[in-house]
């Protein structure tokens, strides 16, 4: 049975929202279990004392990456039916910079803030409200930033295409990079110890 199941109409479209909900429960549960409901833990990677963000994020990305490639290899999923987010170079970079600032100032990202708000963190709730305000601001300013938003559209291009290597080889390099980061991170954690929050 070839995935992705709903786009291939193996199971009905009506299941989609149920699956979204179930995926969300898993997402929220794991995030909270890992400690992403604490802004101090999240910010920790930038100061060396807690690299949980790095470890979880990159392990998840690599697991997902390998999972997709292996599924494709076994014929369990048709990769061309999987959404690849399109690259608009300038908005990706500048948006990322603004988000990075938001991250170090607020100590959350949207997913983690909702998760933290769910367990009662008031600062997370304020963050979520902030997100809404920021989005509203963007909507209002849209006509002005439109040209930046739409600039440099490269299509739904994959990094492996840019480097001219196969997806598997790219995945391998990403794994190496991630592992290196893990080893460095653990050294940093030993150097900057802190108490668990």
């Amino acid at each position: 049975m070839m995935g992705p199941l709903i786009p291939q109409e193996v199971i009905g479209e009506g299941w989609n929202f149920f699956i979204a909900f179930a995926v969300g429960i898993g997402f929220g549960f794991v995030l909270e279990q890992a400690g992403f409901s604490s802004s101090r833990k999240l910010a920790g990677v930038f100061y060396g004392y807690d690299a949980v963000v790095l470890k979880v994020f990159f392990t998840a990305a690599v697991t997902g990456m390998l999972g997709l490639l292996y599924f494709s290899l076994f014929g369990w999923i048709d990769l061309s039916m999987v959404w690849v987010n399109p690259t608009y170079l300038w908005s990706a970079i500048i948006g990322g910079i603004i988000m990075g600032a938001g991250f170090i100032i607020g100590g959350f990202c949207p997913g983690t803030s909702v998760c933290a708000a769910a367990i009662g963190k008031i600062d997370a709730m304020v963050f979520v409200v902030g997100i809404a305000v920021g989005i509203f601001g963007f909507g209002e300013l849209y006509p002005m930033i439109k040209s930046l938003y739409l600039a440099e559209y490269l299509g739904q291009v994959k990094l492996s295409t840019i480097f001219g290597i196969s997806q598997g080889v790219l995945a391998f390099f990403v794994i190496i990079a991630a592992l290196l980061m893990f080893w460095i991170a653990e050294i940093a954690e030993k150097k900057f110890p802190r108490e668990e929050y």
Partner: protein
Amino acid sequence: MKTKYMNPYLAGVLLGLVLLSAFYFSGRGLGASGAVKSIVVTAVETVASDHASNSEYYSKYTGEGKNPLNSWLVYEMLGVIVGGFLSGAFAGRLKLKVEHSPKITSNKRLMLAGIGGILFGFGSQLGRGCTSGSALTGMAVLSLAGFVTMMAIFGTAFALAFFFRKNWI
């Protein structure tokens, strides 16, 4: 009180499997900012529907028969709330509080959270996704945008960390 968190590598693998199942079933990855966007769009439409249909940005999501709340991400976010809550409940971490470094006040923390949120909200729209949607999901499918966004977010945060260190350590 020391609290017990899951081993980060294990959590990462589990998160990766959640991501993989999203791809396998729905053909798409995770996301977060999009759900808040749907709520904002709905709110704007309810309160000032003319403005919504005139605006270039909102009109994409409003109009006859289109309910922005009826989106994959909104349902996913509802799940995140439930999942987070359950995990917190099992671990005994449910508590209404403002978490902040002992070096700053609660109010300052709230203000910083607000500012951070605004920046993230704006940036996520410009960047077409946040860490979960663009960076994490994007990297799993090897998209260029995913890597670029991820590097921009983490790079900037690292670069600015020095200036905000008093708020955290």
